[in-house]
């Protein structure tokens, strides 16, 4: 009984435990602090590394892309410059040039009569761009119907060749061409000199393009 009483009455003596508990707490705080601080800085450095690595990868990608673009530019830009010179992107000027050149050719080839008819311009879809969600250039087609009175077929040939020469880049196309004899078989041309013998109706398609507003990719 005495023993039990003594045991119950004995309070915990903190004196001998103060120092180890204090050291323990300081140790824990110190340990946690250095772990947390070092971990914090490690994460920071790791984040910096990851960021720079990601930036470098991105730059590498952009660099590869720009190198590819440069290769494209080297081959394509001179052609583009030429197209610009030929007013490929300026529909109005191009149509004026067409009229002017047709007139010149008529005079040069001595075509008795040449009538033209410009149809409305239409947006065209090129099948090579079908798979692309959007392309940065729009192509247009315009039709010119030419009704030509000629003495012989060679005049028509001269006219077509003349058109090709005018337009350095072959950006027009002949869609169809009908040539009709104007007189019966027994018609004697020598009795009616200067009269056209043939009438040709040809439909030409000529192309132009319009650049979509440039996105700032730089």
């Amino acid at each position, binding site marked *: 009984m005495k023993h039990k009483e003594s045991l119950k009455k004995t309070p915990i003596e903190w004196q001998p*435990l103060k120092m180890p508990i204090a050291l323990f707490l300081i*140790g824990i705080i110190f340990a946690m602090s250095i772990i947390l601080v070092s971990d914090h800085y*490690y994460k920071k450095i790791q984040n910096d*590394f990851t960021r720079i690595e990601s930036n470098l990868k991105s730059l590498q990608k952009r*660099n590869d892309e720009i190198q590819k673009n*440069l290769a494209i530019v080297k081959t394509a830009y001179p052609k583009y410059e030429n197209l610009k010179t030929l007013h490929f992107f300026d529909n109005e000027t191009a149509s004026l040039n067409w009229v002017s050149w047709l007139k010149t050719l008529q005079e040069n080839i001595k075509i008795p009569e040449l009538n033209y008819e410009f149809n409305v311009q239409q947006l065209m879809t090129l099948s090579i761009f079908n798979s692309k969600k959007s392309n940065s250039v729009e192509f247009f087609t315009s039709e010119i119907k030419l009704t030509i009175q000629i003495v012989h077929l060679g005049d028509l040939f001269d006219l077509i060749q003349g058109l090709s020469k005018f337009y350095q880049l072959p950006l027009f196309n002949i869609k169809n061409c*009908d040539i009709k004899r104007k007189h019966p078989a027994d018609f004697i041309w020598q009795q009616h000199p200067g009269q056209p013998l043939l009438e040709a109706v040809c439909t030409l398609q000529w192309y132009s393009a319009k650049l979509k507003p440039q996105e700032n*990719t*730089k």
Partner: protein
Amino acid sequence: MKAQPIIYFSDNQWIIYQLIEKAVLEVRRFSNDEKGRISFKQWLPESPLKSWYQPISIVVDSRQEEYHWEKVPHVSIRDRQELLQLRQRKWFSNTPYSFAHIQGKSQQLETARLEDQALCIGLLQPDPLQSFVQILLEHKIVIQGIYSLPLLAENLLKSLPTAKYTLLVMHTEPLNDSQPFGLRQVFFVDNKLVLSRWIGVSHTSTSMFSAFLIEEINKTRQYLLGINALFHEYYLNAFIFTEYQYIDEINEFAKQKSFVNITLKLYNAAHWTFQEGLHKSSSPAHLYCLILQRLKQSSPTNHYARSFERRYFKYFKLRQILYFITATFVSISTLFTGHIIWQMYKTSLQTTDLNMQFTQMEVAYRETKALQPEDIDVLALKDTIDGVDWLSKRQRFPLQSFNFISNYLIDFPQLFLEKISWSYKEEISQPIGGENPTSKIQQLLQAKRKEAGLNESKFLELIVLEGKISPFDGNPGKALETVRNFEQHLKKDKRIKEIKELVLPLNLSTINITKGNLTHSNTPAKEAPFSLEITLNM
């Protein structure tokens, strides 16, 4: 090596020992009375005991210690503690210092009932020890345990020859001037303590020590027989540890006298303890010193110390655990931090390297970018050129076809053309798997076809010739032959893909009815028209 303190506590005195390597050295001795307690109290604050600040073991060597060696029913481990406590309360209800433990298991042959051999020991007069412990606690001395010296003596048996019944006889510390030493007889069965006797030896007894010793051993034997701890038919193996000067005397005496079932084995205590690894001990209690040394080596279960008396030991252990945990935490965290710092260093080096690469690449990038045109986006540029190329490939002129036909018509002047129409059509080859091939095989095949140029569109030019036979002699058969000849002539050319006869000189038609007059069959036809659609593969 750090000195380890041990207190020897007997009815007459207490002795402070310190264990240093292979020596048990006496530090101070106090008489077990009021005078001794006062001087101990005065000595203690300045004593090395406090400065050592390490656990102290108290070994009790008392004549007041009582032994109850008995069989108890074999019970489960859970109930065993309660059973032992009951035994302690039965035998030692008036003392706080008692101890009971199970020594082993035995079986009664008659009943086949399992029984355990238990030993219950206690101090009948606890007050001197209690007051001594109180002094230690007042000074916050860490008490690891209070041990019974006879029970600790079990540790010595492993160094002695094995025997069923063993009696260990050894000298105690000197008691006073009239008693230079005492004799401690400890009896074991199967190397387990049964009881112990303490006998004082006077100067008179020392003169006839051999006779006195043998008589006391005989007395012990008789007592053991009396309590059925030993049986007549068994030998009692007495191991006597004594001083060098008594050995010859005892041997002489033993030769003269015959013993009944007692085997005597004599040992020079000082020599034997030296052999056992205790190189320095105080005479004559060499074996006591060996027991103290082995106590520190083995750290046995506490026998007598109560929980509150061992509280400083608990604090001591707790302090040790706290220090250990703290040291472990700090060490691990330091190692971890060191590792992290090393990783940080390596990462920093890599970052610097990447930074340099980035700077170099950025310069190259800017230089390349400066070469890009400003007026057009590269994508638009590519699309424009691709589009123009695509259109260029589709460019068609009639000149070649007209020349082709003209060359053939020269050989057929009868064919008078009234109209010639030219157009073209694009024949697109059907890709494998449609426009969007799904399977990999289809994609592969399509790629192969594209490589071989099989996917390219083909342009077919169409020429429609309308005319008539001129001059016409009225013979439609001949006219037809002329047209067919022309067709055959054309078909020889590989560029001709197909010729369709739209209108022939007989003018048979799927729409119009063809009529004739057989009566006037000689009437000639007026005209022989024809119309052919020629498909050219130019």
